[in-house]
């Protein structure tokens, strides 16, 4: 009998201030490439990538959001339906770190209650301009009970790990809940079709 090419579909979301490297993180993960030219994301874009975790093939649909302030109200409408959210700041940009709390509040207000979160301190390869110590990142992550990693899309540090960890956390949550049938149902629920027509609902 035919085997499914993937067992589960997870929808993930990247949020954070403009310029922290959300698109670069996604580009590194999906295409294993990096470009230092900055092109601001004006909208919502996604890429897919299939990973294998705990013997299951998981298709990740990863949404990259515009970080610019003026789009915030619109982008929050895309939070619903996300099963995991990557919250990214730039270790060389103090302000982007300070805004983490604001982003966390945003998630509380607009995302599904049981969404898995993860905080990423990106650009950790640039030590000369570092403004936020790793300790501070870890501290805020501890305070909010959210996993934390320092990453570099440029140096390919912790990028795969970040997505794998987040996806694993989602996977484990399902495994902990209704065993067996739950994942399939989730997959159906989060089909792109639901959100695409309305875009923002």
């Amino acid at each position: 009998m035919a085997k499914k090419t993937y067992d589960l579909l997870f929808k993930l979301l990247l949020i954070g201030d403009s310029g922290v490297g959300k698109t670069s993180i996604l580009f590194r993960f999906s295409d294993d490439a990096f470009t230092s030219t900055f092109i601001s994301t004006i909208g919502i874009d996604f890429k897919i990538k299939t990973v294998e975790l705990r013997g299951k093939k998981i298709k990740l649909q990863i949404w990259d959001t515009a970080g610019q302030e003026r789009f915030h109200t619109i982008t929050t409408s895309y939070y619903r339906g996300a099963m995991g959210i990557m919250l990214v700041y730039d270790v060389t940009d103090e302000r982007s770190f300070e805004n983490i709390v604001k982003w966390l509040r945003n998630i509380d207000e607009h995302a599904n209650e049981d969404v898995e979160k993860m905080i990423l301190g990106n650009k950790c390869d640039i030590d000369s301009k570092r403004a936020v110590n790793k300790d501070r990142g870890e501290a805020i992550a501890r305070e909010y009970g959210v996993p934390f990693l320092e990453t570099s899309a440029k140096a390919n540090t912790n990028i795969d790990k970040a997505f794998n960890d987040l996806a694993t956390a989602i996977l484990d949550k399902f495994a902990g809940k209704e065993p067996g049938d739950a994942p399939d149902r989730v997959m159906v629920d989060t089909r792109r079709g639901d959100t695409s027509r309305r875009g923002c609902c």
Partner: protein
Amino acid sequence: MSSNQDLIGIIQAKLSSGETASSCHEASLMQGWVRASRILALVEHENEWALFIFISSRMPPEVFTDLAIERVIPVDSDFKCEIDAGEQSGDVYVNISSRKLKLLFEMIPGIKTNNFVSEIMRSMEALMKLRGPPPEFQWLHKYSGSTSNRNSADCDPAPVDAADVDVTKGAKTVAEKMLDIDSPDIVVPRQSIAQGATPIAARESVIRYQMSMKEDDYTFTETLRVFIGTWNVNGLPPNASLSPWLASDMEPPDLYAVGFQELDLSKEAFLFNDTPREEEWRKAVIAGLHPAAKYRQVALVRLVGMMLILLVQEKHEKHVRNVAWETVGTGIMGKMGNKGGVGIRVEIHNTSICFVNSHLAAHVEEFERRNQDYHDICSRLSFSKFVPTKCIKDHDQVYWLGDLNYRITEMEPRIVRDLISHNSLSALLECDQLNRQRQHKNVFDGYREGPITFKPTYKYDPGTDDWDSSEKNRAPAWCDRILWRGDGMEQKEYRSHPILRTSDHKPVSALFESQIRVIDVVKYRKVHEEVMKKLDKLENEFLPQVTVDNTEIIFDIVRFLEPQSQELIIANTGQVPVDFEFIKKLDDSKYCKEWLNIDPAASSIKPGEKCDVKLELFVDKKSASKLNSGEDKLYDILVLHLDGGKDIFITVTGNYERSCFGSSLEALVHISVPVREIPIGKLVELENVREAPGGMEPYPIPKEIWFLVDHLYRHGLKKQNLFLLTGLHSELIAIRNWLDNGSSEPLPGSLYSIAEALLLLLESTAEPIVPFNLHSVCLGAATNYLQCKQIIMQLPEFRRNVFLYLCFFLQELLSHANENGLDAKTLATVFGAIFLRDPPRVSARGRVNPAVMDRKKASFVYHFLVNDLSDYVMSKSLHLSGTS
């Protein structure tokens, strides 16, 4: 939709005479990463079947010239058809393979697909029931040129030498030529995808297909030493060790397949298939195995006297999967188990192997009966635990052993024995029935047998090495044989073991070194990962992609009633056609603000093409008041959504130049200078706070209304159709500028334009003169002048002023009805709609009855046009004859 019958007719027209299309079906052929439409047809010619694959220039085809033959696959012994059901999509996958050609078709589940697949299966069964030499498919010759244009140069038109004597190696057969295989290198036909012709195939089918195409990349071969033994034991129990037979080689074999015939000749065994011999011989086999290795029994199968036992070395046991066994009786009545075959199939690593032990019909002259037994076993031995069932030929490697019972004919037993004693076996082998029947392809087509260097194994006096001395005086024969079929199989030994004298037969054995495909788990994962990666990449590449030339549309100065437009160019830079649409965001009721118009708001763009979207910004009487009050701004973020893809945000901004149009009456009475001379902040403040700036005494009515009415009063009382004919747009703009900027020039524009400007001014306010909350009261009171009067008296001061001022003016107009032709009812209707303007977003459909409502509004206003209004306390400045 053309019915299947129509389609068969079209296909039939494409075929030559004598060829009949019996069944046809539409299917999608997996080509690398994409799928393409094909039409399959099963074609029959004199009991030979072939699967024709057509490409059609249109779907469904209408005439036979629409069809081109892409490939013709003969349904021969190499033809395989496997069915798979996609769990997710529900699609049916049909694997057609023949030699190295593998084709995967996706079919829509349903009765049509079922019927077609069963037709294919039936044609395969028909082939197996065929007696005599295998079909040669000469009729397909003419198609071999057309199978593939690219390969046509390589096609050798020379006819196949069908009489080729060498059974094992031959020139290319027709079938092989038909199947000249395209390079499996996968090219994504971007151009055709771009035209929307071949969508990306469903993932699961592509992965399966890709993995099977790349099998060589993740498998390596391991050599297994396979020992095959066969012995007809003549119903006797074991009486000596079997190790001279089973353990005659230096190295221990990896696998044993040991077959017996005539294990038990008793009635009990025949009738009840029950015998103590099974266990006796099983034990004997186990005791006789090579001592240098440990073995595990994989399976044992027995039908009456035919027994087959399969053992592997312990270390291989965990790699043996999907074990199954079956029996077929071809004896008395074609059913009983005194003759027939037993089979065991296994998969070792990634190679499927089938072992068949058979005992075919006896007696010298019965070779045709033996042939038939062989064919019966081939068609009836199927392992039914698999779906669809697997037959002998569906295995990568087949070992066929047994007492096949073929004899040496046309030779005296005496001469035979003589030749044997002189070791002249070759002359005898030429007279061997099996060799002859195989040369004629009547039996064991596609099988190979090693050269026989041992003496005939039948018939001896039991307990001796002497030829049969009984009355029957049977001629010696090579009854006991071992044949094989498949790739990577090499026979190292083929011998008899005369030292075992239990039976009237001598045991025979063959040792093979067979290549087993082993999956390298690390490589498999890597290849699988690469396939997934490639698919992910393709999937990402085939997402809709566009670029827009500008995501920030800026309109410079925007003025009331003056439309402006800009173009947005959406270019499809992706690989697939794009459907785009501007979508609503958040709680908005529309995909853009009311002052914006997008054309088109949704459309499709082919790859490489563009779409110009016109964004028209137009502030009219509906949107002006909100912009004046600051409730709204010329700022909007549009969400451009690509179906199945991303969303792009497009920001639209503009600088609105405020006007008296859209200002509230309350704000205007507080402004003594032209609107343009007031700072914007002040205007917004006036709209919201409504307090006089700098303690100025407010006007009783807005000066703008006074200017317009006064002009009409002075010049237009005798003008016909005032308020009924529309003005000119350019003059309205000029009037707007005159009012907003102030001027010493006389008011520009015709009387009609000025009259329309007055109506427009009244219509552009956020609320009509009679506030929305009083509308239902007004309409309820419409028949009663006193009640209407009371309502008007209760209006806020400036509104009441404007209302009465305008009614005075209208009465003045009506007093000149003789000249201007106006009448009270007409004016009441016009001004009813103005004074009691419907709230925004109440569609005509939402109202109870628009016509009734409009009549009530008119009758409300009518009272004030025909009754004496002099008893209203009026401010002096309201008199129409005021000075300018």
